[in-house]
């Protein structure tokens, strides 16, 4: 059951809290670690904790964490046997996974073929739809022309979303309320997608108002076994990025849960998935759910699934990449877990990023509290990268215990002068709507300053 027979040394092609998380999993498995870092991250925790650390480039991610030749060269000079890509950066880059395969480097993730399919969102929608999973009504693949988009929107009814086929993180996504807006949106989304993702392909989806975001964590092995480890609700977002995540979702009864978990497994099977991954769904107020996309990586919010299942998902990723079988066919989550993301951003000013030095630091603890972070007192949050500074996770026997624990834990978070989202998350958790489980995408707006009208 132990993977060290196959991998003895793993290079982590990432930074921040996830690099630290992966280093910890490797250590517990007896695997030595190689960190890579940019010159802006010379004093970063991941570079310090790894057994070996190699500087791969200047601060700009395109010249360091995204630079494939430098990462492969680092793996070669450090004698790493496999690469863990974490999330973001190159984690869903099928070409990178393919190059690793050609260089005889193990890849802690799915096959390049599965990544290529899940990365082409239009093709993935089609494949998962053919497998009998409901997908959001929309175009069958990318739209070829504005006329085609208009005709389709006519049939579906407005509003519609225009999305980049190779997009993510809210980039290349446009909402169109009518025909005039759609004509404009298609061109804009194509330009944005071409600039951000190097591919102008866009597709259309019916916009589902008030939909909740529910995702299913799956694990697959190379024998074709795929299991679901429960769902996560991630409806509370800022700028299309998640802020508060919880499991189980208060929106699902047993029957609906069973259905959506089965759909998640079907989606993974349609993609040929052999690692830890996530099928994302929208749950409409009507109770109907729709597949939207598949994330072929470990996710930021994998922690809450770990808290209720007791399964170390990063360890499982490494084991599965080494070709080991899952070894279990069913997992029954227990209790409730919620995660709040601490971004170094100012919620009072439209989530303006607040990089800088963390001269003072206090992080919470106590029963049921887990903190995943790369912060230490005196560390620098560089302006070049994502502003995620820490994740505070609370586990409870039920949802209310988890809420209370998390809200109190967040009150303790202190990052010196660095503005952050801890206070905002605590206020949302204590609010009546959240406690009732009455969660919708607009819930966060109640806690933000109103846009200035003057």
């Amino acid at each position, binding site marked *: 059951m132990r993977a060290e027979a196959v991998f003895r*040394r793993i290079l982590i092609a990432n930074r921040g809290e996830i690099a630290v998380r992966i280093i910890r999993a490797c*250590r517990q498995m*007896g*695997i*030595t*670690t190689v960190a*890579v*870092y940019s*010159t802006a991250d*010379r*004093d970063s*925790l991941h*570079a*310090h*904790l*790894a*057994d*070996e*650390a*190699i*500087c*791969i*480039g*200047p601060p700009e991610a395109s010249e*360091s964490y995204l630079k*494939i*030749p*430098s990462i*492969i*060269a*680092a793996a*070669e*000079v*450090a*004698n790493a046997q496999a690469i863990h890509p974490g999330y973001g950066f190159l984690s869903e880059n099928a070409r990178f996974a393919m190059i690793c395969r050609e*260089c005889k480097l193990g890849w802690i993730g799915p096959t390049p073929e599965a990544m290529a399919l899940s990365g082409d969102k239009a093709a993935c929608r089609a494949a998962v739809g053919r497998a009998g999973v409901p997908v959001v009504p929309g175009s069958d693949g990318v739209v070829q022309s504005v006329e085609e988009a208009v005709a389709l929107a006519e049939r579906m009814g407005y509003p519609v979303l225009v999305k980049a086929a190779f997009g993510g993180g809210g980039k290349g996504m446009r909402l169109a309320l009518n025909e005039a807006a759609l004509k404009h949106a298609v061109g804009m989304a194509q330009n944005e997608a071409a600039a951000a993702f190097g591919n102008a392909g866009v597709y259309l989806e019916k916009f589902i108002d008030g939909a909740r975001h529910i995702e299913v964590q799956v694990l697959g092995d190379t024998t074709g076994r795929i299991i679901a480890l429960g769902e996560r609700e991630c409806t509370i977002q800022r700028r299309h990025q998640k802020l508060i995540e919880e499991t189980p979702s208060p929106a699902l009864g047993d029957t609906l849960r069973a259905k959506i978990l089965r759909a998640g497994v079907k989606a993974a099977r349609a993609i040929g998935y052999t690692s830890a991954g996530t099928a994302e769904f929208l749950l409409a107020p009507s109770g109907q759910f729709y597949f939207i996309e598949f994330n072929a990586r470990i996710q930021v919010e994998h922690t809450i699934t770990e808290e209720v299942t007791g399964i170390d998902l990063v360890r499982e990723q490494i084991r599965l990449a080494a070709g080991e079988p899952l070894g279990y066919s069913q997992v029954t989550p227990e209790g409730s877990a919620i995660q709040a993301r601490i971004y170094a951003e100012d919620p009072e000013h439209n989530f303006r990023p607040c990089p800088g030095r963390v001269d003072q630091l206090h992080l919470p603890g106590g029963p049921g509290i887990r903190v995943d972070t790369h912060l*230490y*007192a*005196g*560390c620098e949050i560089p302006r070049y990268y994502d502003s995620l500074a820490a994740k505070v996770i609370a586990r409870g026997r039920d949802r209310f215990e988890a809420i209370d624990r998390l809200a109190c834990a967040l009150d303790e978070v202190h990052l010196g002068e660095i503005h952050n989202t801890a206070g905002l998350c605590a206020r949302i958790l204590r609010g009546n709507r959240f406690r009732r489980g009455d969660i919708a995408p607009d819930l966060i707006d109640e806690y933000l300053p109103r846009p200035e009208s003057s």
Partner: protein
Amino acid sequence: MDFSELQELIRLFESTGLSEMEIEEGGRRIRLAKKTATEIIAGGTVMPLVPAALPAAGTPTGGSSGTGGGGLSGEGGLRLEEGLVTIDSPMVGTFYNAAGPGEPPFVQPGDTVEAGQVVCIVEAMKIMNEVTAKVPAIVEQVLVNNGDPVEYGQPLFAVRPLA
């Protein structure tokens, strides 16, 4: 243990892949240690800002130590004479001082180089990347050995700019 035995021991140690060896005999202890290539690479990563409470790099898994210190890439370890500057590696990879095995080195200490002249190759992913001098200079010192792994920004040559 006499001197010849010690010599024999060092020869033996050098011919093996061992990076460390310790022998205790009659109350005397002899410890031999080599810096591995990986330790040299990691030399630049000692982080003074990290609180002492954090585990020291490398110790818990007992693998190659990340605290090699004094490695070639440790800027802290490199004391430049006044008037000298370094030519740094533009990427992580393997350093080659010549165009191929058996070829003469691109430059040697004492050589004068022109701006734009190739001084070495750093190989990454089987691609030979030529490193050039930015200004006319006299090569004072080659700071790494042929075939050494080097990281981004690691000083490769100490040179004295002309004019």
